[in-house]
């Protein structure tokens, strides 16, 4: 395709978009809204994943030693298990230290405190930090098999519940997005149909003087693409500003809540919204041209 033709096609596309101002605006805003909803779910998912991974990195396993085991045996196990695969860090605590920690955590539980002070029912043990959260179950069972180990506790359930929730969130997001995408598709199809209708005389003259099919189609395809892309960009700007604000507010209101960073979020939303916008735009032009532009 020659440079002349490209110039012409770009010019015609611009003409179409301006000629149907209201439909252009309607299409861009539908794309934007649909992409905004998509982004909303993405922001949620990214944050869920972030929280999950933060929690996973904090997960520790507690290994409790049976009572009346000698300190020497405990130390042997501590030394050996440091080299087990998956272990990042080990920390020994005595039952006295465990009691002190408990007192600090629940200073208002008088009954508990007196109980512990009289005869300490707690165990000596280790805090075990793993390199990866997936190492936990295997390590836990390995510790359990040790004769001096009383039991092993780890908080795997919170993590697995969170990941299950984010999967549900993801599917719900895709479902809603599918419906919205369909609605967006119809709007853009209609916009292009109007453009074809507004330019039917031009199209018939073009056919008559021997313009190629694709020469006739390109401006309309390009129109769909631009509608999709501009809508996505609008959504991105809104989401970007919105998340920026959210981060700022959250740092005041929930200082300890781990929020995903701006870049983490925007990278993902940009990929998806721009990709989605282009996809919807192209699909819409193809549908519109098949149905309304018999070249």
């Amino acid at each position: 395709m020659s440079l002349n033709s490209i110039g012409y096609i770009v010019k015609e596309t611009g003409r179409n978009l301006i000629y149907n101002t209201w439909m252009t605006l309607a299409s861009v805003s539908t794309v934007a809204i649909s992409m905004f909803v998509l982004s909303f779910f993405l922001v949620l998912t990214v944050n869920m994943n972030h929280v999950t991974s933060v929690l996973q990195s904090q997960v520790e396993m507690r290994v409790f030693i049976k009572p009346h085991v000698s300190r020497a045996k405990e130390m042997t196990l501590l030394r050996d298990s440091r080299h087990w695969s998956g272990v990042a860090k080990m920390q020994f605590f005595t039952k006295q230290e465990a009691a002190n920690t408990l007192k600090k955590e629940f200073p208002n539980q008088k009954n508990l405190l007196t109980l512990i002070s009289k005869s300490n029912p707690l165990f000596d043990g280790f805090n075990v930090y793993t390199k990866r959260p997936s190492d936990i179950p295997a390590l836990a069972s390995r510790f359990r098999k040790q004769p001096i180990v009383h039991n092993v506790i780890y908080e795997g359930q919170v993590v697995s519940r969170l990941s299950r929730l984010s999967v549900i969130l993801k599917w719900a997001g895709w479902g809603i997005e599918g419906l919205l995408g369909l609605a967006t598709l119809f709007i853009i199809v209609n916009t292009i149909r109007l453009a074809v209708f507004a330019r039917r005389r031009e199209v018939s003259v073009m056919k008559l003087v021997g313009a190629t099919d694709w020469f006739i189609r390109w401006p309309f395809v390009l129109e769909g693409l631009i509608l999709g892309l501009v809508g996505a960009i609008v959504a991105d700007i809104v989401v970007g500003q919105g998340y920026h604000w959210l981060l700022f507010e959250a740092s005041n209101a929930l200082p300890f809540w781990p929020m995903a960073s701006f870049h983490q979020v925007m990278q993902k939303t940009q990929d998806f919204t721009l990709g989605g916008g282009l996809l919807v735009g192209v699909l819409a032009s193809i549908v519109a041209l098949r149905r309304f532009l018999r070249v």
Partner: protein
Amino acid sequence: MIRFENVSKRYANGHYGIIDVNLEIRRGEFLFLVGPSGAGKSSLIRLLYREDVPTTGEIYLDEFRLTQLKRRHVSRLRRQLGVVFQDGKLLTNRTVYQNVAFAMEVVGASGRDIHKRVPQVLELVGLSKHHNHYPHQLSGGEQQRVGIARALVNNPVYIIADEPTGNLDPETSFGIIKLLQEINRRGATIIMATHAKDIVNQMHKRVVAVENGRIIRDEARGVYGYES
């Protein structure tokens, strides 16, 4: 060279446009297609520029076999043709110049070629002074000249005109015919469907008469032959 071989066209409603037509048109000819309304003149012309495809038979146009022509190659055929209509089919929101230039733009001509060629063609059809006018500012005859200019601008081998003088008074019509004659003199083949008896009779060109879808007369230097 154009050749119709046993061409029939039956429309979806069962009506026949033309029946078993055989016709040969050489390059450089000037041919009138005459006959009453609904006789099949327009059907024949629509088959020529591949708006319709024959139901049976074959049409050859230079290297093209029209029944074999793939849809995406129709544009190649159309570039050999310049088609002129009774209603002109001008773009009302573009000036005379833009209307003519449009035909060049959409086949990918360069800006330089367009700037050179369009004024030449407007000069030929006598509209140089009107190049900035919009179609509604022109008379019927002038509008038809724009249509002819647009058909001419890409240098087609064949000019196909479907009643180009249908809406014009006799004097203006004569101007249009003179123009087509000049174009013919410069080498283009002209095929013109018409009702204009006086013109046909005066021109002494080849006349093909169509009635009820069949060719009933084909004379080298013919007359209109109907009392209309």
